[in-house]
Each structure stands twice: as structure tokens, then as C-alpha cells.
């Protein structure tokens, strides 16, 4: 059964804009992105929204729905009351290009700052031999669809724009963890994680984990293990002593 839903959609360019009210038809089984598309088709042909797969796998349609970062294509209209006003805004951490479309190039810049996979010099491609249990831990992180909702919700940069130069954000902490846990990666990633990527800024309030549409345990499986590895490297005198006595590689 269809009904008329009340929508408030942020519209504007750059940072300037306002929330505009609409009443729009909703049919059974639809998601928020469907309703946004109906708005485009019937009332606001110039409404800008980024989307692609409509299956929760491309990470394009990230937006904030009733204040929470969500994928528009995965947010069912049936989760709202029919008389509820649904507020849709662009991601709040990134600059707006137009309406619901934000400029996420901050993330691409941070991606370039993480050195790529670095195998040992004496191991050639094709010679890697790994057990499944050695790689499955970091395979979880490869589920990331780069929707950047974890980056958006992280208060370190969401509430403090000035931290952006010093903080890479949860998406890149899982990238660093993935590489650091890789059996064949030999690059030093612990000290850079703390000193260059701002791991210490994270106060593990787990919002990144809460919003991840792929249900990656970002905090428990990537950020906290990396923090512990940083403690090994920088702050734990016993580990330092052990590495000296037993000549362990750190």
C-alpha cells in the first residue's frame, strides 16, 4: 500500500543551503534512494544525488538519514513511521558539491599516504605461501566498500576540521591493520600509524563500527589491535627489553 511521506532534504551548493520540505509517494518495498529518485522525477529534477549499484555494494549513496549516516539504497522506508518526517542531508564531514553530493577527495588523499603492500625483497610474486588462518583475519577488512560513512561519523574530524591533516580515519586504519597483519608485508606501519596517521586521536567510541554497512569490526579487529601493536613498539618497556634479549624482530 502506498502512502505520502514527508521528506526534508538539504539542498544547496558549497556550504550554503537549507532543508526543503516535500511530500512524496512511497510504495511498498521501497528504500530511501527510491524516494529520492521519485523526487527527482516528479518535483526537483535538479536534485543532485550520487548513486550507482542500488545493492549496498558500491558505497556511492552514503547520506545522513534522520541524522545517521546510512546508505540510501539499504534504508528501507518500512523502518519509518508513515507520519514521520524523514530528514535527508549530505555527509556532514565533507564539503558539499551540490545537494546530497559531497567531495570525498579527502579520503583519496589519505589513501595515497598509506604505503602499498611491501613484500620481502627475496620473495617473488608466485612464491607466497600462506595458510588460510594467516590471512583470514585481514580478509575481513577487504569487505570495505569505501562508502566513507566511518570517516564521516568519526568525531575526530567531524567535529574538528583542524584534525584532518593529522588524522587518516577509520577506513585507513583498517587498511594499515590489513597490511600490518599480512604475513608477507615487511614495511614498518606501527610508528607511522601513530605518528603520521593519527591513531592516537582515536578514543575508540566505536561509531565507525556502528555505521559500517559491511559490519566490519573496525574498532575491535583493526584499531585496537593496531593500538596494541603501537604499544609494543613505542610504550612497553618489557617488549623492548624482550626484543633486545631475545633479538626478536620488532
Amino acid at each position: 500500500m502506498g502512502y505520502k511521506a514527508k521528506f526534508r532534504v538539504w539542498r544547496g551548493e558549497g556550504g550554503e543551503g537549507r532543508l526543503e520540505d516535500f511530500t512524496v509517494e512511497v510504495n511498498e518495498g521501497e528504500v530511501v534512494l527510491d524516494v529520492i529518485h521519485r523526487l527527482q522525477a516528479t518535483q526537483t529534477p535538479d536534485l543532485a544525488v550520487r548513486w550507482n549499484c542500488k545493492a549496498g555494494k558500491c558505497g556511492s549513496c552514503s547520506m545522513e538519514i534522520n541524522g545517521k549516516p546510512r546508505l540510501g539504497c539499504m534504508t528501507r522506508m518500512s523502518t519509518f513511521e508513515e507520519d514521520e518526517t524523514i530528514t535527508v542531508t549530505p555527509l556532514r564531514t565533507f564539503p558539499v558539491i551540490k545537494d546530497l553530493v559531497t567531495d570525498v577527495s579527502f579520503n583519496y588523499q589519505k589513501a595515497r599516504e598509506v604505503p602499498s603492500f611491501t613484500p620481502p625483497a627475496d620473495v617473488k610474486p608466485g612464491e607466497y605461501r600462506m595458510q588460510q588462518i594467516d590471512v583470514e583475519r585481514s580478509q575481513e577488512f577487504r569487505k570495505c566498500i569505501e562508502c566513507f560513512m566511518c570517516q564521516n561519523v568519526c568525531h575526530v574530524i567531524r567535529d574538528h576540521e583542524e584534525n584532518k591533516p593529522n588524522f587518516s580515519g577509520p577506513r585507513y586504519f583498517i587498511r594499515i591493520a590489513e597490511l600490518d597483519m599480512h604475513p608477507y608485508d615487511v614495511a614498518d606501519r606501527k610508528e607511522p600509524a601513530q605518528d603520521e596517521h593519527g591513531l592516537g586521536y582515536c578514543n575508540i567510541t566505536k561509531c565507525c563500527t556502528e555505521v559500517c554497512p559491511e559490519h566490519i569490526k573496525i574498532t575491535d579487529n583493526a584499531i585496537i589491535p593496531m593500538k596494541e601493536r603501537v604499544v609494543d613498539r613505542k610504550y612497553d618497556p618489557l617488549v623492548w627489553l624482550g626484543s633486545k634479549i631475545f633479538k626478536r624482530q620488532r
Partner: protein
Amino acid sequence: MTQTTAESAVRKQRAQIRVRTLRTDRWWLAPVLTFAGLFLFLIYGFWAMFDLSMLAGSYIAPFSSPCLAAATCPEGARLFGFAPFGDWYKLPPGLLILAFPGGFRFTCYYYRKSYYRSWWMSPPACSVAEPHSKYTGESRLPLILQNVHRYFFYVAAIIGLILTYDAVLSFRDADGNWGHVGLGTVILVVNAVLVLCYTFGCHSCRHITAGRLNHFSRHPLRYKAWTLVSKLNARHQQFAWASMVSIVVADLYVRLVAKGVINFPFA
């Protein structure tokens, strides 16, 4: 459609929405309940630290175990058979113990989340703006000291084992005969199990067992331990709260028995 170029001055602007949050759910409820829960725990812990009724038959109040101060615990420490802190020690006996499990919980990754959100509002909830104008997190003093967590874990693990020992001793009656099972025995056993599940499900424990390794296949026993700790770790929040409640219940129960307030058969 308006063309916006990378050079546009306005392009670098976020959406200007002058409200703290647009969330419509009861996002404030979790931080309020967490604040209240932690506050009550601190109040109780402070009282228990000064209360001297810690022994009731074979039961010992968890907040005062192991009993280390001779002046307040004339039987001496059961675990060691003597009291390392002699008559010269005048401060509350609980102070000797609580600093370590207290520090363990204070630096615990779960509790950090809970009090950063509920006490410091940094942030109070996801997508809710925090009130602070500046933020450096745990990147510098004093919060960088949270990295000492694993050392508190080492001590908390010992104390957890001592609480287990106390729970085993609670199967003795007041005369020292084995076979006694009272309500206090059940409470102390449940408390010991929950404290152990919380302590050994800690993120530092997970790291120490095998989390620091990159080749699990070369260390099958450590990998097995890591998988077990990971199972506990997945419920770390639940065990944190459950053990916090159980330790207060167990501690209060023993003290009430010691004071004679609870005085029924099979107590």
C-alpha cells in the same frame, strides 16, 4: 545544472546545518544510563573501600580480597598466610586492592568508550556534536597513559584468579569443613566466572595471546588461545557490565552477612 569546479571557493564548505544533531531517536538514553551505572559503581566502591566487614565465615568480600592489611584483617591474607601490610598500615585495606582492578577497568577499551561518551561527551553519541572546541584524543598526555592498560591486565588477571580461589574456599563452612554450599557460595562462584570472562576477554589479553603475531599457523596453541579469547572479547561489553553488577552484589552480600543483616540458613 550549476557547474562547480575544484577551484571554487565555496566547494570547500560543509553543509551548514546549525543544530547539534538531526537524530530523532533517543540517542541520549545510553549515555545517561551509562553515566548513572558508572556513578553508582563508583559510589559503592568508595563506601566498600572504607567498610571493614569483609569476612563472613568462609566468605570474603571481593572488594577486599586478597586481605593484605594486618590491622584490619587479623586472620591475615588467606592466600599467602600472612599480612604483608603490618600494623603500620592505617589506610583502608580496600585501597591496596581496588587501585588495580579499578585501573584495569578505567583503562579498558570498553570502559573508555563508555565514559568518553557518557562523562566526557566526546561524543555523547554517534553523529551528535561534542561540546569541546579542541580535541587531541589519546595522542598526548594525560590520555596517552591509557596505553598502560596491559600492565593493569597482568595484575587484574592475578586478582581474578584470587577471586576464583576465594570462590573455591567458600565451599567450606565457618569451621573450615568442606562441603558447604550456601547462597553466598553461589554468588561468589558466579562472580568469579564473570570476572574471569571479563578479564580474559580483554583486548590486551587478545593481543598478548597471539594478536601480535602475523603467522598464526606457526603457533597453533597460541592461535587456539586467541580464538578462545576472541570469543570472550566479542562479548566484552556484556561481561564488563555483568561482572560489575556481580562484584557489587557479591561484595554487598558478604558484607551484609558479616554485619548480621543477612542471617538465614544456607546464607
